[in-house]
């Protein structure tokens, strides 16, 4: 067990160390004056003036239109698949409802896949559709982070930066170089990167095995760096070609956390308050460690029903034991639990084990991470979500002590609080609303793979994953039906854009305000006390919102499992 805990800790420590230089680099990207040659060419081609400052309205419009155009292009590429090259298996295009769902999904870094990659997408589309959106979409999220930060840093000036400059710099200076290097490391460890068609093997027992492959590594690296999560293969990072060795597994986890953790340091640098950045980082890390502890303990303890059926789940020198249904031997319980926590915390959504087969409390840990959306969260947008809670927290504190709330020396007034609350309420409205609808919609329950409380969890997980732009699933749910494709598609779009735009408006509003000088009476947000308050607000708000749903699904199932009941 010490070795298991140590290997989990190592990943988190490496991440913390890397967050500092990466954060500094990111801050430099958003504040540097020079434009590189490829960037200047891009601005010329797009007809954009890089010196132009945009206010929150213009910034939002640029972001939404660019994303919309990318989504539309993605949809077209999917529907025209049979006319495009590099399609060795001659795969037909996706149906309109599935193509809508896939396009919306990849355009928002959700990467919810109601399709199975190796039998549905041509190599061309794995590159031109998936890899493209996996670079593009998270860059828009990181750009939104830059806009928000500029808004909080500036005083009496309502410009938030230039969307096109932010987007282009992120792609050329951050995403592509790192993805390229990481992809080569992945190939070295065994991920395929080829345009050759499937290999055919003659097995030792005299059968044939058709082995699917393709340009996997280039997708796999940006899939994690950008908190996208959509796999080349159906089984995502459980597939040996998409995650061949424990080293790759560890690197994928670090990659998932890298940008989204580094922005806390970048934030601190950009607003000249390093301590504030660290407070946010520590809040994130505490919540993550809490969730890892829950998932790992649950999976380590295992499933008593399996022991009754004859399985040995003990941890010994010769086996990792624990609940191994849906898991891979090379990762065992420790690395699988960490992967589950990290992928749901960062709203990435790739999986190295099948979440539908997790123990009830393990699955609950995954679900809670997504619903809180404040355990690092997705690239750029996770930080924005934390700021949402942070503003709510100073508001609550202000109410308790009877002072006007302020955040980073800007007054928080009714307008900001209203926008923050709208943004926060949209998530549960979508998650719980759609889940409720699915339960009563005729025929929807036919899609469930597991009965009883676990089946309820499949539905709740699906809408949580969609709305929070995570993309992982309790994959027993057959989501390729018009009902689920459409409703999950809408949940995805609501969760991304309707929650993001109000926060850009908050940024614009705060940017235009004058800074208030700090006095002895100012409640500093760069202290451990504030950090603890923030954690409290996150956990209480999340708990109050979702506890009934947890009770109906995971908690009931856990109690039933302990009582030896099956369904």
């Amino acid at each position: 067990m010490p070795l298991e805990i140590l290997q989990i800790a190592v990943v988190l420590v490496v991440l913390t160390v890397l967050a500092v230089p990466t954060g500094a680099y990111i801050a430099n990207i958003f504040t540097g004056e020079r434009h590189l040659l490829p960037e200047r060419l891009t601005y010329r081609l797009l007809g954009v003036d890089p010196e132009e400052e945009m206010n929150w309205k213009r910034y939002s419009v640029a972001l939404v239109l660019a994303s919309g155009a990318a989504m539309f292009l993605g949809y077209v590429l999917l529907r025209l698949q049979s006319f495009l090259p590099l399609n060795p298996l001659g795969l037909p295009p996706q149906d309109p409802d599935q193509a809508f769902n896939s396009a919306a999904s990849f355009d928002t870094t959700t990467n919810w896949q109601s399709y199975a990659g190796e039998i549905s997408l041509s190599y061309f589309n794995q590159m031109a559709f998936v890899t493209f959106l996996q670079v593009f979409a998270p860059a828009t999220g990181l750009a939104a982070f830059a806009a928000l930060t500029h808004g909080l840093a500036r005083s009496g000036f309502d410009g938030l930066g230039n969307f096109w400059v932010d987007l282009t710099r992120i792609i050329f200076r951050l995403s592509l170089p790192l993805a390229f290097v990481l992809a080569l490391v992945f190939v070295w460890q065994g991920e395929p990167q080829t345009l050759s068609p499937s290999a055919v093997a003659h097995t030792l027992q005299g059968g044939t095995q058709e082995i699917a492959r393709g340009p996997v590594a280039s997708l796999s690296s940006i899939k994690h760096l950008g908190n996208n999560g959509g796999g080349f293969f159906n089984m995502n990072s459980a597939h040996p070609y998409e995650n061949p060795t424990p080293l790759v597994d560890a690197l994928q986890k670090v990659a998932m956390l890298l940008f989204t953790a580094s922005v806390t340091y970048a934030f601190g640098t950009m607003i000249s308050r390093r301590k504030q950045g660290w407070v946010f980082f520590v809040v994130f890390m505490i919540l993550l460690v809490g969730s890892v502890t829950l998932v790992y303990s649950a999976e380590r303890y295992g499933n008593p029903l399996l022991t009754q059926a004859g399985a040995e789940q003990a941890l010994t020198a010769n086996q990792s034991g624990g609940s191994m249904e849906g898991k891979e031997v090379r990762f065992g319980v420790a690395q699988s639990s960490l992967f589950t926590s990290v992928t749901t915390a960062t709203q990435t959504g790739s999986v190295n084990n099948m979440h539908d087969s997790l123990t009830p409390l393990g699955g609950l840990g995954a679900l809670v991470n997504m619903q809180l959306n404040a355990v690092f969260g997705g690239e750029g947008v996770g930080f924005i979500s934390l700021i949402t809670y942070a503003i709510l927290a100073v508001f609550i504190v202000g109410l308790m002590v009877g002072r006007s709330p302020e955040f980073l020396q800007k007054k928080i007034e009714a307008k900001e609080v209203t926008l923050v609350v709208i943004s926060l309420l949209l998530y549960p409205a979508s998650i719980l609303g759609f889940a409720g609808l699915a339960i009563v919609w005729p025929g929807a329950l036919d899609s469930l793979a597991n009965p009883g409380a676990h089946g309820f969890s499949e539905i709740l997980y699906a809408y949580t994953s969609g709305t929070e732009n995570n993309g992982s699933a309790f994959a027993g749910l057959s989501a390729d039906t018009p009902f689920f494709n459409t409703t999950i598609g809408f949940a995805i779009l609501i969760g991304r854009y309707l929650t993001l735009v109000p926060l850009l408006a908050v940024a614009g509003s705060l940017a235009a305000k004058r800074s208030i000088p700090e006095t002895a009476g100012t409640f500093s947000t760069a202290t451990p006390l504030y950090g603890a308050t923030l954690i409290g607000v996150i956990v209480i708000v999340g708990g109050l919102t979702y506890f009934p749903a947890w009770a109906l699904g995971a908690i009931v199932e856990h109690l039933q499992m302990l009582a030896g009941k099956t369904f």
Partner: protein
Amino acid sequence: MSAVLFMLITGLAYPLLTTLVANLLFPYQAQGSLIERNGEIVGSELIGQQFTEPSYFHPRPSATLTTDGTKPDPYNAAFSPGSNLGPTNKALISEVRMRAEAYREENGLPSDAKVPVDAVTASGSGLDPDISVANADLQARQVAEERGIQEGEVRRLIEEYTEGRQLGLLGESRVNVLELNLALDEISE
């Protein structure tokens, strides 16, 4: 339009460049780590294969289906679903019970012996190439008997093909079933 420009750069230029460089630097891995014997491909180092005969080590149960999704087809590497059975699902528990009984019979274990959990649960990918060392150890006697070789020899091979934790720390110890069975075939020739 911006979407088309970025699609060409990130969706085509970047992956194609990566493919070129990857095949220059690491051609074996880039093509899928395929293993050849006597001029033909017998499988991949990374992808599990089905083995049912008593003279071979058996891999983990696999929940993959035929590519049209209709029938079970263990270790189908052209399509990869997992079982997705929840922890309290009757189907899972009865599957595990049946697999445990089969395992005990195949390997001459007493009827109340506990079986390593990886031997009775399906892997996530359905293509897991490895089994735990505990699993391999329990199969050694049966395989040695079938092939008429010393059990000690088989155990020596297991040790040779056991991969430890990477960098001494990451992941778990594991035994690659295909490589082990290939080695067995070689010494039996």
